[in-house]
């Protein structure tokens, strides 16, 4: 099976010269979702009729000249994690507790993409309510990695990782509460953007932990990620955390290199317990950054040591509060692992939850002053070890996987606690042929700098010169 890996810009170029390709590209996307997407367990809902109708409408308006053709997403097929509501579409959040549930509203960001001309083609498999890092889901299915179907896609935006890496659509929105955009992006060789707290509106997205949840895209290229982030970053009046901040010059500055930027190698926390092969790969990229003109220095990130546990504590409490009624009514409908994680939240006293939240501002201020005054970004691992297989990371069948999985969010969860932005950038392959990556973390609202660094390194490494062998999925 071969699917041409077209970027958003390549699709737009084709649409500019051949407007009739809007229907053709949409038809390919929904067909591939229905075939390859389902073979990878990555699809929750294919909206074939709605997508084709939308494509026909867009194509007609383009041919009549009734539409603004400058939109970078005009006619581009997209599909999102099954936490994103579209009125009238199924929305189960990867959970049997929501079996047969239909959305009663449309998410703010889905509306934003509609306004930019995107064609929404369906919903993709999620770990139950976004609560898990590996992608395991006995109800909705466990997505298989396009690079090797024995391996996990990471989670919780697991279907998004599989479908974008498989070339079915160029972009999918995921959610990130403790790493759920970055971990699958890293597992599948994608660019994943965890946006600054408040930058992208979240109304109409099923919540896991409202103080930590963020929205962000998974794409194959930095430019595609920037296009989508620019399209969705806007004030959402229905989201209390939303701020009025527009990323107006994200694309303009993307190709400007990084000779004016400083990259920090964290001397504490982030490389603790990281396997040597992982840190060696990141060190090589750090050296490339220096060669490309960035100032590379060591830097401390003070007070970060407890942020991982703070994030887990807050997520457990807020998740427990959101799902208490359903747990009491029918706990057996929950995934065993989700239930175990949610139950923890009931046993955390209010004063500990309060302290975890109250400490957030001072932690963010301290790190902003002590770390991000010295550097524009820090470089860290995402997964601290080579990607595990589906079998070896299955907690249900393999209880000794607990320690390994506890470490999976070691480098991602602290970023959610702080509320800072981060970007996952693929950099190569491990000994098993699975993607490896780096995480770039910056100060709030510095997505432009992070993406500029990522784009400069991406140009150097050309990760997507190698592509997944999707033939293994052909039956």
């Amino acid at each position, binding site marked *: 099976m071969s699917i041409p890996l077209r970027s958003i810009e390549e699709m737009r170029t084709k649409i500019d010269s051949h407007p009739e390709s809007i229907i053709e590209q949409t038809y390919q996307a929904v067909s591939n979702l229905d075939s390859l997407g389902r073979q990878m367990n990555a699809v929750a809902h294919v909206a074939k009729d709605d997508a084709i109708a939308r494509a026909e409408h867009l194509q007609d308006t383009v041919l009549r000249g009734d539409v603004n053709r400058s939109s970078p997403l005009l006619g581009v097929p997209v599909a999102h994690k099954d936490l994103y509501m579209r009125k009238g579409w199924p929305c189960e959040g990867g959970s049997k507790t929501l079996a047969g549930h239909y959305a009663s509203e449309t998410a703010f960001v889905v509306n934003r993409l509609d306004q930019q001309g995107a064609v929404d083609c369906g919903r993709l498999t999620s770990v139950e309510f976004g609560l898990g890092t590996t992608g395991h889901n006995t109800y909705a299915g466990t997505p298989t990695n396009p690079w090797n179907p024995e391996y996990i896609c990471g989670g919780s935006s697991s279907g998004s990782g599989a479908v974008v890496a498989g070339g079915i659509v160029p972009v999918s929105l995921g959610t990130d509460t403790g790493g759920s955009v970055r971990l699958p992006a890293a597992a599948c060789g994608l660019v994943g953007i965890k946006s600054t707290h408040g930058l992208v509106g979240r109304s109409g997205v099923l919540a896991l932990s409202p103080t930590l949840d963020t929205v962000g895209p998974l794409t194959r290229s930095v430019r595609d990620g920037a296009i989508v982030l620019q399209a969705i970053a806007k004030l959402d009046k229905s989201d209390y955390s939303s701020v009025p901040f527009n990323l107006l010059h994200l694309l303009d500055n993307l190709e400007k290199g990084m000779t004016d930027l400083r990259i920090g190698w964290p001397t504490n926390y982030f490389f603790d317990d990281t396997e040597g092969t992982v840190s060696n790969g990141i060190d090589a990229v750090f050296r490339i950054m220096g060669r490309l003109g960035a100032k590379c220095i060591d830097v401390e990130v003070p007070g970060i040591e407890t942020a991982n546990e703070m994030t*887990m504590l807050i997520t457990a409490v807020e998740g427990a509060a959101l799902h208490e009624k359903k747990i*009491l009514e029918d706990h057996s409908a929950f995934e065993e692992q989700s239930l175990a994680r949610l139950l923890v939240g009931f046993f955390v006293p209010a004063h500990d939850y309060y302290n975890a939240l109250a400490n957030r501002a001072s932690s963010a201020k301290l790190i902003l002053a002590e770390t991000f005054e010295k550097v524009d970004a820090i470089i860290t691992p995402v997964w601290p070890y080579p990607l595990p297989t589906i079998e070896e990371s299955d907690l249900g069948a393999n209880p000794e996987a607990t320690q390994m999985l506890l470490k999976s969010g070691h480098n991602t969860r602290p970023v959610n606690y702080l509320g800072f932005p981060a970007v996952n950038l693929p950099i190569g392959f491990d000994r098993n042929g699975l993607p490896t990556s780096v995480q770039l973390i910056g100060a709030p609202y510095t997505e432009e700098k992070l993406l500029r660094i990522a784009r400069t390194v991406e140009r150097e490494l050309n990760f997507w010169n190698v592509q997944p062998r999707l033939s293994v999925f052909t039956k």
Partner: protein
Amino acid sequence: MSDKTKHSDDNSLISRFSMAGISEESLNNAADVAKRLRKQACPVNSSALDPRHFTDYQAFFFELSRKA
């Protein structure tokens, strides 16, 4: 809060969720994980915390977004 009160809170929670059919083993595991998380997550001296810090976070990000 004394350890005795904490223990009693845990027992009342275990009893409540047991009545919903959740096994005591699962609930005891959850209580143990919570205890470990609290210990690891909250070495912060809570007496140093100002209640304003709770709302400070959102205000801080609004301020940063204006400056950026």
